[in-house]
């Protein structure tokens, strides 16, 4: 039976449709990531907090509606907010003691300190911690609870790599224990790292994350006339279009390219420029310049890759050397290819 079942849930604000009715179910031991903008996320959070009434649909947890019994509902869910309060003047240890008694957790919490890597700073006051460390205290709170469904809001926004890896570790542990997880995020990269089931939620409804067709499929398309283009002068710059202007970039300038609903965006120094070409076209053009298709929706400039991070056996990330230290997903099949290119076996 589905742990979480969202049925026919929709949201209108004034006369605008935030999202039309959609259904989503999550079974035991599954993780789903939903990518959306801020307004959609807040609307969903309000529903889970029982702040707004859901007009025609319902959200069911283990078969019972969330509006039914507050006490039972609160036992079944654990909500981890992006902006979650901590007591600034108390230490991490004080928080753990409070959580332990509050949630009736009856084991020593050394293990939790260890998982969240807060061992060494456990006597520090919250106000002296960094944002990432605070997030880890908030993730630790989750581990004191034992519900069947976990909801995470923007779990890895603005956190360091260590904290991100701790979070992924925590989700892995929860999934092993047969828990269900829903992650709401505005960052498609983190959604892809956390889950294999990624959706986008917007005015058009809930859509599975669309990935472009593989290159081989496209090549077999008879309408494509590759040969004509060979004869034309090939210029090496990549054109992008901003409003009515066409801006040209040298391939080495480009950090990476992301495809978002069929629109490919070229990222240069943290800024996105919409490209006029599809990802497949760009891959073709940029291959000679050391670009690599690391994911179905990403092309990366290998010259800019600084680190390759292994989150789990199936999920990897590339961390770039650019200004915002962007991290982009690397899919499992491409990992093997990359290793080959790097001469690792």
């Amino acid at each position, binding site marked *: 039976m589905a742990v979480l079942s969202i049925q026919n849930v929709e949201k209108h604000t004034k006369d605008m449709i935030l999202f039309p009715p959609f259904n989503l179910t999550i079974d035991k031991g599954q993780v789903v990531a939903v990518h959306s903008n801020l307004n959609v996320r807040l609307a969903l959070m309000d529903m889970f*907090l*029982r*702040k707004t009434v859901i007009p025609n649909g319902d959200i069911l947890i283990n078969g019972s509606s969330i509006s039914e019994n507050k*006490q039972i509902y*609160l*036992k079944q869910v654990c*909500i981890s*907010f992006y*902006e*979650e*309060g*901590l*007591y*600034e*003047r*108390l230490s991490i240890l*004080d928080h753990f*003691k*409070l959580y332990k*008694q*509050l*949630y*009736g957790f009856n084991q020593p919490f050394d293990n939790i300190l260890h998982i969240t890597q807060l061992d060494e700073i456990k006597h520090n006051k919250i106000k002296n911690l960094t944002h990432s460390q605070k997030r880890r205290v908030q993730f630790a*709170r989750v581990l004191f609870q034992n519900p069947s469904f976990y909801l995470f809001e923007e779990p890895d926004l603005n956190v360091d790599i260590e904290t991100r890896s701790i979070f992924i570790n925590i989700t892995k542990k929860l999934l092993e224990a047969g828990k269900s997880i829903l992650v709401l995020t505005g960052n498609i990269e983190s959604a892809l790292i956390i889950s294999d089931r990624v959706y986008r939620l917007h005015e058009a409804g809930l859509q599975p994350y669309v990935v472009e067709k593989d290159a081989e499929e496209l090549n077999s398309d008879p309408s494509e006339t590759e040969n004509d283009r060979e004869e034309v002068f090939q210029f090496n710059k990549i054109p992008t279009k901003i409003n009515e202007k066409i801006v040209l970039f040298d391939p080495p300038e480009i950090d990476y390219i992301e495809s978002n609903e069929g629109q490919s965006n070229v990222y240069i120094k943290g800024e996105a420029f919409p490209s006029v070409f599809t990802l497949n076209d760009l891959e073709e053009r940029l291959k000679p310049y050391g670009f690599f298709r690391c994911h179905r929706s990403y092309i990366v400039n290998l010259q800019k890759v600084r680190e390759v991070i292994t989150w789990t056996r199936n999920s990897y990330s590339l961390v770039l050397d650019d200004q915002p230290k962007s991290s982009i997903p690397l899919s499992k099949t491409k990992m093997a290819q990359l290793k080959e290119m790097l001469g690792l076996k």
Partner: protein
Amino acid sequence: MTVSMKRIYAIFQKDLKDLSKNLFVSSIVILPVLMAFMYSRMGDILDLHYLIINLTLASVTAFIQCAVIAEEKEKHTLRGLMLSPATLPEILTGKSLVSLILTIVTLVVCMMITGYEPANLVLISFVILLSCLFYLALGTLLGLLTKTVVEASVVILPFMFLFGFGSMLKPLVDDYAILGFVEYLPNTQLVELAYKIESGLGFGSLWSHLAIILTWVIVATILTIFVYRKREMDD
């Protein structure tokens, strides 16, 4: 739904520790103690003793309760508590215990400074405790209505004056009929009760004052519950 002492204690412990490090709020305790020092030189006058006691109730009890709840709201921690297995009565009991204990300590210190020795300690303690309930409810109410500690400490000022120094308005009642309500304030009632107890009157002649204070407690509690229902889960 059973009330868990363990959770109440956890919240109590957390708040006590937090408050002890929160000088902005806990330094309010100095106010009644300072006043007690100043007035202790004026001799053993019952009105003065109760000026200090009422001031303690209005400043320490109500202000601390109000500031503590407003801070939880400001820092988004109240939401976390409400989503935890702790129920609202448990959260409020834990918090009220902190304010209550601090009030009792302050009261004892002040009474030692002013040298107040009530004729009937048991009865007086009971009456003061009853008044405490009103101030706790008032503090909770204002804490729920405000959003930040600073806002809370401003909003509570008129209440501190009214209930802390309200008994000073009494001589003016004869001149200004509009101030007639002062007679029925819980602080005025407390003073009148003290006079009657001091003169050795029994429980029978006190019930009207007790009833008025009890009405204040009930009204404040109902208002608090009403406001909480409206603002439930508010950030």
